[in-house]
């Protein structure tokens, strides 16, 4: 592998990791507060579509980014309403969000944008750095990917809110006994999770592809879910996992485009399955121990014992 292959691999990681990394950060924030967010895939899809639509409608990629985050926030509010207010099963509620996103976005794509063949026309894109032969680096996406997990880590570790946030995912009864509201904390966590997943989704059309396609986000939300586990429920761990997963994807692209002998011997499906395979290993304890927050996925019943 030459220097230029390595450099372009690095660029492709920095370009392709941010959507997964931001959604995974959303997953970490939600699960640390005790709510499993299976709906990351659907929230990314909402974010991607409304991001593209917002950019097309306003002519500004920045407004599109805001619209994507807002759409993710709204889908987070839906999950919060189902899982916290109506106390529905968190997994079922998350799957409902995914299915809703699948249907609603496909419908809106045809009805509102009249997209032909499931693909929109070109959308305005966020500013990027041109790196000559190495391609373009979507600086906004990369910057957000590096800054937000660090900020979230600091928030969880060093602020009073972060302390309660972590406590409510471990033992909500202790938080209630300390006089704080479990539902409010968890609600905030799910909203933040939705906004981050929406933001990550919006980066797909606005920073990477320049258009919205009906197949988006093509399983990246589930990869984000895997990154949460592989990153051991920490913001920086999830970032690392997202970068690792993007790297294996990028490696596969680089290898197959380079036509090297090695690439043809490894089937493409192996790289597609790699994130999930590694996650299974992480859960089984082969790659260090992955311990979820004790109250992760456990509904809060104030009168329960």
């Amino acid at each position: 592998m030459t220097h230029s292959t390595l450099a372009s691999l690095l660029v492709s990681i920095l370009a392709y990791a941010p959507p997964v990394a931001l959604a995974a950060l959303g997953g970490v924030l939600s699960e640390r507060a005790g709510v499993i967010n299976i709906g990351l895939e659907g929230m990314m899809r909402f974010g991607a579509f409304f991001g593209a639509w917002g950019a097309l409608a306003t002519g500004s990629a920045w407004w599109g980014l805001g619209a994507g985050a807002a759409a993710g926030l709204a889908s987070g509010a839906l999950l919060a309403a189902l899982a916290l207010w109506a106390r529905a099963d968190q997994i079922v509620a998350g799957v409902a969000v995914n299915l809703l996103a699948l249907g609603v976005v496909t419908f809106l794509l045809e009805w509102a944008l009249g997209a032909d063949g499931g693909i929109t026309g070109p959308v305005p894109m966020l500013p990027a750095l041109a790196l000559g032969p190495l391609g373009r680096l979507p600086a906004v996406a990369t910057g957000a990917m590096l800054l937000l997990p660090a900020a979230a880590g600091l928030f969880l570790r060093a602020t009073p809110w972060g302390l309660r946030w972590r406590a409510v995912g471990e033992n909500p009864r202790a938080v209630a006994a300390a006089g704080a509201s479990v539902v409010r904390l968890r609600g905030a966590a799910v909203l933040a999770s939705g906004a981050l997943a929406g933001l990550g989704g919006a980066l797909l059309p606005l920073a990477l592809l320049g258009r919205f396609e009906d197949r988006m986000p093509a399983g990246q939300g589930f990869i984000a879910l895997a990154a949460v586990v592989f990153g051991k429920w920490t913001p920086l761990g999830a970032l690392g996992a997202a970068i690792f997963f993007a790297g294996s994807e990028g490696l596969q692209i680089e290898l197959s485009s380079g036509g090297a002998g090695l690439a043809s011997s490894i089937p493409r499906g192996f790289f597609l399955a790699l994130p999930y395979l590694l996650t299974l290993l992480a859960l089984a304890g082969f790659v260090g121990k992955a311990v979820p927050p004790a109250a992760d996925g456990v509904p809060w019943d104030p009168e329960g014992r």
Partner: protein
Amino acid sequence: MEPVLQAVSLSRSFGPVAACDRISFSLQRGEVLALVGENGAGKTTLLSLLMGFYRPDGGEIRVDGETVRIRGPADAEALGLGMVHQHFTLVPPLTAAENVVLGREPRRGPFLDRRRAEREVAGVARASGLPVDPRARVDGLSVGGRQRVEILRVLWRGARVVAFDEPTAALSPGEAGGLLATIRGLARDGRAILFVSHKLREVATVADRIAILRAGRLVATLPAAGADLDRVAALMVVKERPAPPPAAPSPRLRRGAALPPSAPGERGRPDGRGTSRGAPEAGGGRGAGAASLPVPPGGEEEAASAPSPRSAPPALTLTSVSCLDARGAPALRALSLAVGRGEIVGVAGVDGNGQRELAEVATGLRRATGGRVELAGHDVTLLGPGALRARGVAHIPEDRERGGLCGALSVAENLALGRASSPPFCRGRWLPRLDRRAMDAVASDLIRRFGVRPEDPDARAAGLSGGNQQKVVLARELSGDPVVVVAVHPTRGLDLRATAAVHDRLREQAARGAGVLIVSFDLDELRAVAHRLVVLCGGRIAGEAAPAATDAELSRLIAGAA
């Protein structure tokens, strides 16, 4: 002096049950008031009313003479009322200091001021004589250490009244002594203490006054100094039926009965432990707690039915068995117990003293960490529930709706549970399938024999009354002629007739030669069916008594005051 806390005619009902019935008391600064009573006497409900977990139906609470309304834990905290919970409300991965300040964190700018939190927690720890490292993670602390963190949390929040709910239940004797000293120290500093406990000896050492609750009422308040603990114990006990039932046959006349030929274990070697009372007494530790009441001779109605081949080993023998509870704390401590063939042994004691774990170890649901379990002389210590079941251990679990039955399945299906993979329920070697007709035939037979209503094998188990559900459990567990029957609260929630039916079934099993171990909180029930009572306290056998023992004698053993 104005009492710091006063309850005036405080009441709270749950449905038709008055958990607290017009309870009045007052508490002075520097005073320790003990609340004692049996399970369900209303102690925990009373604390929950004071701490704002429940709202009272009637009566009022006064703090410093002023009537207050406590709508939640935050209100109680603001009034200076704090509680040390029996089941700690801590966050294990956080540090001691983080747990203490949770919800009222000191800040510096937007950030948690961790250094100040640690300094303040260390200060309170020093002032109250509770050694705690503020930086230690709670999941690395012992049970006693966690409790100290829980106490520090209450003190750091400025509590003037501290309630302790069964604080020594989870502690080792040494830790318990330290805690009692701490409580006296808190009182000396001017705080008022409410102390809930079952252990009268403990109460006598720590309290200034003892308030006795019975069935939701406060029946007496006595000064602790020179209190007659027998009288306190007698006051605690509910007398449901005025005349105690006649004593069951004495075990002295009932050395193990022969097992039917179908049961395993006949080849048991003679080992000199063939009598029902032959097991060693609980070993080691607090030997002073072990006391035996005399077993009077008498009772002959069933004795004739029990031939006694002295050579046969007991149905069930536990030899210095230890185990941990679900939270990993020691539950049984070198407990030894033998249940002879044809003998019914009743296990009395306050909830949480190892009864559940004893039943689980005996049925293979819980692994013993030490000691030996023998079934009819064969070592079964390492066997799981399926293997024990196959060897003739029947289990009537504590909660029939959770552990005994599957409510969504039919009666016939429930009767086949646990043995559905063998004939006659299952046929076909290569493609095993349930034989519905055989299941229905077995079910119809058992329904008739055990008097289950409705007489319908297809009825959903969840639709049956509690008594009939329990009959289904009994029918399944007892129809295989078990060697040992382990029954945990077998009549809980049942009416008189259903209760009598359950007792008859257990006596039948004993008469047939099975060893029966029955756990219950209801002393009258134990007296009615058991040949011999053992009292569990702190995972050991604290004493043994004949069914004819008086309430006061038993209460004394149960309360660990003997």
